[in-house]
């Protein structure tokens, strides 16, 4: 059997991920009639308040090649662990303002449990294993480095 060479897909988008592009992505799945369940996670930049200062944006940087590799490994593992039809992952680079979307994970499966569990698995793995760095910019132009919990 011929082995398909699988290469990491780039996950990064400059700036916010638009709601419109997400609608288009959903529409693109309506020809895949083996799908019964979609699960989507979206991370949105939150206007956190810390010591009287308000977060107005997060600026993301990354080691892109390493992050693409890490997410590719997560992706392969998710396909192994769960019965999935397809998977789309995007993360922002650069500035994303409060209210805007910085992370999009879209998992489709014949069955709901696989979709839900895979989506959650991928989210936690990206937070843990992808070398992406968020700098929270405050309304007084100071900043602090985001910490994942």
């Amino acid at each position, binding site marked *: 059997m011929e082995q398909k060479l699988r290469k990491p897909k780039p996950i990064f988008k400059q700036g916010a991920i638009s709601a419109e592009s997400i609608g288009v992505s959903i529409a693109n799945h309506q020809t895949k009639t083996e799908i019964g369940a979609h699960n989507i996670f979206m*991370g949105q930049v939150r206007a956190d308040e810390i010591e009287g200062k308000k977060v107005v944006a997060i600026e*993301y*940087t*990354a*080691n892109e*090649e*390493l*992050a693409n*590799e890490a997410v590719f490994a997560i992706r392969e593992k998710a396909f192994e662990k769960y019965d999935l039809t397809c998977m789309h992952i995007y*993360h922002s680079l650069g500035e994303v303002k409060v209210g805007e979307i*910085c*992370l999009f994970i879209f998992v489709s499966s014949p069955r709901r449990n696989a979709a839900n569990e895979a989506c959650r698995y991928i*989210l936690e793995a*990206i*937070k*843990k*294993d*992808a*070398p*992406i*760095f*968020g*700098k929270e910019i405050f309304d007084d132009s100071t900043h602090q*480095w*985001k*910490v*994942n919990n």
Partner: protein
Amino acid sequence: MKVKITFYGQAADVVKSNSIEWDFDDSISAFGLKKSIQVKYPQISSIELKLAVNNKMVVKDFDLNDCDEISVLPPFSGG
């Protein structure tokens, strides 16, 4: 032997540099380099750092080669 060191996120912020080149007379290991970085830039020793060499995460120590590219990675905070 010469290596290129790239700092990411908070590490770049703290050392006020994105990228430097370092020359060594003797061979040095990945963890040895990490220690040297912490000595040279004591302000990052409070940050937990991971290293990647030529875009592979370092999980156990090994000797670096000439022209290796090292990434200095503070805690990840994507999402």
